[in-house]
C-alpha cells in the first residue's frame, strides 16, 4: 500500500501549482481553472485521509465539494461572460475600473 504521506506531498505540490497559476496568469479562465486544481488537490487529501482513518465521511465531503465546485463554476463563468460583454477582454489587468 502507498503511504499516505506520498498522497499528502502530491496534494501539496498540486495545490502549489494551482496557487502559482492564480498568482501569475492573466487570463481569467485560466485563473479559474487553477482554482479548480486547488480544490481538486484538497479533494485528493480528503479521500486519502478517508482511507487512512477508514471513515467514509471524507468521501462524502468530497462529494459535497464537487457539488459546490459545480455551482461555483456556473456562477463564475457567467461572471466572466458578463465581464467580457462590458470590457471585450478577460484579461484581469484590464478590469481595474475600481482603481480610479
Amino acid at each position: 500500500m502507498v503511504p499516505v504521506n506520498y498522497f499528502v506531498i502530491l496534494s501539496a505540490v498540486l495545490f502549489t501549482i494551482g496557487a502559482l497559476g492564480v498568482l501569475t496568469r492573466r487570463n481569467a479562465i485560466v485563473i479559474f481553472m487553477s482554482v479548480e486544481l486547488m480544490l481538486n488537490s484538497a479533494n485528493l487529501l480528503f479521500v486519502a485521509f478517508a482511507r487512512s482513518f477508514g471513515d467514509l465521511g471524507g468521501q462524502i465531503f468530497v462529494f459535497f465539494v464537487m457539488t459546490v465546485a459545480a455551482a461555483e463554476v456556473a456562477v463564475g463563468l457567467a461572471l466572466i461572460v458578463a465581464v467580457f460583454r462590458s470590457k471585450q477582454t478577460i484579461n484581469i489587468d484590464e478590469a481595474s475600473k475600481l482603481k480610479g
Partner: protein
Amino acid sequence: MDANLIVFIILAVVAVGSALGMLFNRNAVYSALFLILNFATVAVFYLLLGAPFIAMTQVTVYAGAIMVLFLFVIMLLGAEHLANHDKIDWQMPVAGGLAGLLLFEAYWVIFKSDQALKWTVEVSSDFGAPAQIGKVLFSEYLLPFEITAFLLLAALVGAVIIARRNSDKPTRAEEEA
C-alpha cells in the same frame, strides 16, 4: 517494489506534469485539456484509495460536465489567447518564491511533525462502494445533501441572471411596436 507504488509514481508524474502543462500553456484550450488529463489521473488515485464512487463522480462531473463548460466558454468568448501587453517584471519571481515557501511549509509540517502519518486501519473490500456511500449519504448526511439541492438551484438562477444581456434598453422589436 509494490505494484501500487509503481502505479502511484507513474500517475504522480502525469498529474504534476499535466498541472504544469496547464500552468505554462499560453493557449487556454490546451490548458483546459491538460486539466482534464489531470482530473482523470486524480480519478485513478481515488480508485487506488478505495473510492470507486468518488472516482466515477470525478470523471463525469469534473472531467465531463465542468470542463465542457470551461471549453464552451473559452470558445464562446474566443479567448484562447490574450493580446501581448507589458508584464510586471517582479511578478514571476515573487510568485515563485511564495509558491516555494508554501511547498516548504507543507513539507515541514508533514515530515518534521511528531506524529508520522501512516495507514492506521484496514478497511473492508466494499469500502467506498456506491451502496455504502448511499447509506451514509441518505442517513447521516441527509440534511447537507438536501441543502446542496438548494445551492444548485440558486447557482442555476444566479448564472442565468448574471449572464443574460442587459434588458434595460428596449429591444428593436419593442421599439418598432
